């Protein structure tokens, strides 16, 4: 006999809420027309998400637990993103998570026999763009105004104002804006 896995760290309330949210997500959320961002924003906020009213989540994105999701103004989660927010996932304003990316908010302690779950928060700073199919490991903090290239795997913290690519993702150069800074109103 192998050692039994650790007991679930999730409370009964958490599990019931996830079932209810799962039903809402599979129906009202998933089959809402794409431009209905305000509707999906409302659904997420009804389940405790901390969203700016202008935050956008596309219909095919998967949110594990909306009450652990924070999104700033105009932050966007694209289709087919899996947001495994066992711990808090914080997206600053104007953050874009492109399609197929995976924000993985928990790992397991593989050096204990029963491999208990270790949830860890993910924080992504304002203006950062996570390109398509990026893996973000648990506990990672990404700075502001950075870019993470497509298909990268982020296992360590990344600085601000850098272009980062690869597996593991590393900064390869500064991100320099070619146009003049716009005022907040026109940005």
């Amino acid at each position, binding site marked *: *006999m*192998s*050692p039994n896995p650790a007991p679930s760290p999730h409370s009964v309330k958490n599990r019931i809420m996830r079932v209810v949210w799962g039903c809402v997500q599979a129906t009202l959320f998933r089959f809402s027309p794409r431009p209905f961002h305000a509707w999906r924003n409302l659904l997420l906020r009804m389940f405790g998400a901390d969203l700016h009213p202008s935050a956008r989540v596309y219909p095919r994105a998967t949110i594990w637990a909306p009450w652990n999701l924070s999104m700033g103004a105009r932050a966007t989660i694209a289709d087919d993103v*899996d947001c495994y927010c066992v711990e808090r996932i914080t997206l600053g304003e104007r953050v874009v998570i492109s399609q197929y990316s*995976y924000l*993985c908010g928990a*790992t*397991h302690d*593989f*050096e204990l*026999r029963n491999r208990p779950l270790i949830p860890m928060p993910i924080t992504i700073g304002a203006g950062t763009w996570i390109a398509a199919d990026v*893996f973000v*490991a648990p506990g990672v903090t990404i700075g502001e105004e950075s870019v993470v290239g497509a298909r990268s*795997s982020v*296992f360590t913290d990344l600085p601000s104002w850098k272009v980062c690519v690869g*597996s*593991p993702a590393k900064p390869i150069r500064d991100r320099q804006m070619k146009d003049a800074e716009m005022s907040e109103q026109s940005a």
Partner: protein
Amino acid sequence: MTRLCAPYTSRGRGMRLILWRVVSSTVFKLIPSPAYTIRRAVLVAFGAQLDSTSRIRGGVRISEPWNLRMGRKSSIGEGATIWSHAPLTIGSRTVISQYCFVQCAAREVDQEYPKPIEIGDDVWIAAESVIVGGTKVPNGVLVGARSVVRDAIESWTIATGHPAKTRRERPYQGPKS
């Protein structure tokens, strides 16, 4: 991905393959994720050899279930893709995490060949990793998230990266209790 396996899946496998394609793209998809018993029963009906304690979660795609063998308390996570064109053997207490890609085939000069994969006991293949055809993952290996397993790995080690390389020992945690 579908195109990749076309040369040998469409040939000479007859009604069973056609039937599985129909079932897997319709009824099988609709089985709720926690309904392990129902999913297992469907796969066993198509010739998979699954231990009654093994678990396959929802959204898992399996190309040819008759090539799949799973031992005690092993599991396959949500959204994994199992291209089992050749025999795929999974040991006991092994976990294949969400979105992994196990491809029992390899490409050699414009032609794809089915190649079996063996995964041992107490292995953890972490999320979004790829296992290439023809590899053997020995007992107790931990493959880090997003790795690509292509070459031989020693047992009870931790391997990460693309291609996955051994980084350090993993303390032995075999069945004790």
